[in-house]
């Protein structure tokens, strides 16, 4: 399992160093990290996150299996709670024998992460924590409880 959750902003340099050192002798030819950082926009002071861990873990395990089938490994770190401007809340990385697999996997993985991982984002403004409804995506298969019979 290479899924790490932290309270608050991520220590990017140390997490990447740890992942790099853990795999430096594993004979991977490619290491492609993605780091998501909180930008200063729309007057926010930061972002805040809720995570539902049981489903995040099973989602991640399914991706790890797909990666393994191609000889690759995925790592991911995410923040819980408040993350302030210019801090990072998300890191993922793929190690693979050759570059193409890692470059394609990181793209597919990050897109599916955005669409499916059970994490909820809030803007921090003043003393308020405001759900980022307009930037959120309904998980595939949503809405079944709303169908009237």
């Amino acid at each position, binding site marked *: 399992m290479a899924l790490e959750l932290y309270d608050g902003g991520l220590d990017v340099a140390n997490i990447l160093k740890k992942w790099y050192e853990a795999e430096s002798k594993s004979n991977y030819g490619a290491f492609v990290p993605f780091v998501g950082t909180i930008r200063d926009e729309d007057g926010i002071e930061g972002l805040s996150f809720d*995570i539902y861990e049981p*489903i995040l873990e099973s989602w991640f395990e399914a991706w790890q299996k797909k990666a393994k089938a191609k000889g690759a490994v995925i790592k991911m770190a995410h923040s819980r709670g408040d993350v302030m401007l210019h801090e990072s809340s998300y890191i993922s990385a793929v190690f693979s024998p050759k570059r193409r697999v890692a470059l394609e996997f990181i793209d597919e993985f990050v897109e599916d992460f955005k669409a499916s991982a059970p*994490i*909820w984002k809030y803007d921090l403004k003043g003393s308020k924590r405001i759900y980022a409804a307009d930037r*959120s995506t*309904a*998980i*595939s*298969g949503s809405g079944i*409880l709303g169908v009237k019979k």
Partner: protein
Amino acid sequence: MVRVEFLGPIQKEPLELEIKNLNELAKILQDDKEVSEWLQNSAVAVNDTLVASLDVELKDGDKVSLLPPVCGG
């Protein structure tokens, strides 16, 4: 009893309900003003596995979770 949990931004305490399937839950939640607006865009998990249909039987001790739209990263 079946425990029903509302995740993320849905501001609602968990419910403990005597229900036998998801169809019964749908009827109860559609009449609940606190949560009805979330039903159209929430995913549903039974015992932490997402389900795609209401044709799911529930038994004592099961957990149902409602997952509203997500945005990690």
